[in-house]
């Protein structure tokens, strides 16, 4: 149902109901008033006849004595009005049409009777021995009432129909700006995300148009970001795929050592592809609605141990751990905490000369645990610090997937933590990952603490 029709029905029906009730009320009053007026007419007529008769008794007294019963005919007083005068039971005068039996036996005052199939209302008056009865037909009263009603109702109905028509066009023109907006929206292509022009719009619709434009702006930002990400991801996957394909083709056209070397390279390419894919998957899961609650408790030391084992399974001595025997449980799933820390260690090791070690420090505050990773690498410039957490950004032609730090930032953001990159004055980089830790018992608070706090904010980059 269109808005126009709905508005029209709502306003129209309530208007008809209200005015109908008013009309009924008025008709009721009119009916009562008319009955009273007509009754008054009956009584006044009776009094008038009685008065006239009593002023000249000789006119009818003498005649009764000698002529015996004979009736005096009266002219018709008014349309439909009948009158009869009697004395001691004898009718001495009557209007034509009034039958003797009809009115004579009437009791005093008003009464209603049915005579020869017609309903009558009569008024009887007795004065000086004279009995005067006036009467009129109820059907005539009804006809009169109907005529009055029709006369009164015709302009009323005309006014009602007229106002409904005005309402229809009024609502239509009132909704015109909305219709224009609808046409503007309907004529857009599905991928048009440009703002709706607010120039020809009605002022009432400006807030709506502004909200729509705001939404469109956010959508277009999201879509272009996702598109860029998809294209970047495709590019990233193509690179190892190219390496694999090329080496496989070399292996096919060469023999001996050359072919073996090519196969080794192809396998390296596969490993790189696998790494990029799993990093992409992790990132999409951290940023998406994926539930990570695996039920395992993330002890800070255990997280550090697992992350170190994953980062350098064969050269653990490259990492120095300084944890001061801190025992604390992190308020995020162990798998994610390990992933984040491993990415940081991977990164630090990749950019450090192989002779130098990377230092990992764990520090505790009442509500948080922070992991500090110090490396001896070349560090990052201010510009590079700003880019470091962007997806697929690498320093130079680095070997990683370019997603490691993006994943750490996404994990920190999701669980209300903080991720900072700091250029150290003595060279190298300090990376700080601060994560919320568990307060109270594991059982009850676990779920509660896991929900990322809404107020948590990521630091603005570059972190100095």
């Amino acid at each position, binding site marked *: 149902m269109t808005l126009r029709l709905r508005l029209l029905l709502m306003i129209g029906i309530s208007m008809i109901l209200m005015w109908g009730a008013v009309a009924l009320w008025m008709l009721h009053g009119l009916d009562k008033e008319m009955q009273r007026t007509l009754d008054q007419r009956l009584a006044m007529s009776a009094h008038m006849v009685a008065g006239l008769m009593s002023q000249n008794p000789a006119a009818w007294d003498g005649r009764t004595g000698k002529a015996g019963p004979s009736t005096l005919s009266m002219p018709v007083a008014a349309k439909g009005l009948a009158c009869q005068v009697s004395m001691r039971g004898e009718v001495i005068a009557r209007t034509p049409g009034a039958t003797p039996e009809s009115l004579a036996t009437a009791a005093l005052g008003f009464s209603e009777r049915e005579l020869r199939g017609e309903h009558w209302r009569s008024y009887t008056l007795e004065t000086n021995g004279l009995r005067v009865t006036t009467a009129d037909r109820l059907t005539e009263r009804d006809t009169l009432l109907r005529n009055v009603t029709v006369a009164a109702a015709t302009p009323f109905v005309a006014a009602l129909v007229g106002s409904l028509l005005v309402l229809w066009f009024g609502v239509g023109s009132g909704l015109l700006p909305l219709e224009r907006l609808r046409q503007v929206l309907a004529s857009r292509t599905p991928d048009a995300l440009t703002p709706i022009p607010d120039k020809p719009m009605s002022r009432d619709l400006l807030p709506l148009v502004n909200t729509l434009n705001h939404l469109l702006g956010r959508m277009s930002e999201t879509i272009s970001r996702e598109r860029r990400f998809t294209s970047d991801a*495709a*590019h990233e996957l*193509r*690179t190892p795929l190219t390496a694999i394909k*090329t080496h496989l083709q*070399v292996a096919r056209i*060469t023999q001996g050592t050359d072919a073996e070397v*090519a196969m080794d390279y192809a396998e390296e*390419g596969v490993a*790189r592809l696998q790494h990029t894919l799993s990093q992409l998957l992790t990132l999409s899961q951290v940023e998406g609605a994926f539930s990570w609650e695996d039920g395992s408790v993330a002890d800070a030391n255990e997280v550090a141990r697992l992350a170190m084992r994953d980062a350098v399974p064969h050269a653990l001595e490259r990492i120095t751990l300084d944890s001061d025997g801190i025992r604390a449980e992190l308020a995020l799933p162990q798998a994610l905490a390990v992933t984040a820390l491993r990415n940081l260690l991977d990164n630090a090791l990749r950019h450090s000369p192989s002779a130098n070690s990377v230092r990992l420090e764990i520090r505790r505050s009442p509500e948080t645990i922070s992991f500090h990773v110090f490396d001896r690498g070349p560090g990052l410039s201010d510009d590079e610090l700003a880019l470091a957490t962007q997806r697929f950004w690498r320093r130079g032609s680095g070997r990683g997937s370019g997603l490691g730090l993006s994943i750490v930032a996404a994990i920190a953001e999701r669980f209300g933590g903080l991720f900072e990159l700091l250029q150290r004055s003595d060279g190298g980089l300090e990376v700080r990952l601060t994560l919320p830790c568990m307060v109270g018992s594991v059982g009850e608070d676990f779920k509660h603490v896991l929900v990322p706090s809404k107020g948590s904010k990521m630091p603005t980059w570059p972190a100095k």
Partner: protein
Amino acid sequence: MRVLLIEDDELIAHGILAGLRAHGLTVDGVRTAAHAEAALSAAHCDVVILDLGLPDEDGMRLLQRLRAKGMTLPVLILTARDAVQDRVAGLRAGADDYLLKPFDLDELVARLQALLRRAAGRSVDVITHGPLRLDPASGEVSLHGRAVALSRRELALLAALLHAGGRILSPDQLKDSLYDFSEEIESNALNVHIHHLRRKLGADVIETVRGVGYRFSAGKA
């Protein structure tokens, strides 16, 4: 044919170098735009393969700069950027061909040969000169309809001389066509190969221009 590969990804570069060498091409690989410029000014090369995502400079800008400096070598862009506007921009920047990663090695070789052929002003791949016929794609050489077996170096030497038409090539230019930077060259290696070619194809097929170099001897083969 000597190829310069500009590609920063080590794994891919290894693959292309090995693949092109297996196809009998002489290839040098560099990883940065700066090295590419140095390599181009240091030695002769016939065709350039360029990756766009270089660590020190965008490949497209490098190409524009080289073209502005008057480099006329055929350039094939090898990239994972597949959008139409990327390809258009690449071709406008001065590239002669555009190949998307991942690619087929055979296709890459065929495209390189096509580029070289067009640069030499020919439209068919097979080079015929009198009774001599060379198919660079398959490496087959025939003289008077009889197949002649040539080694990889001999083939490259013959191709270089044929591509040059009747121009004289200096010994250094010929060596550049035969060997990449990583190879040790014996002082008399070129003479040995020329000697072998003369033995297989006829003594007067290569003319020695004393003090200048060598050229393919027109009409005598």
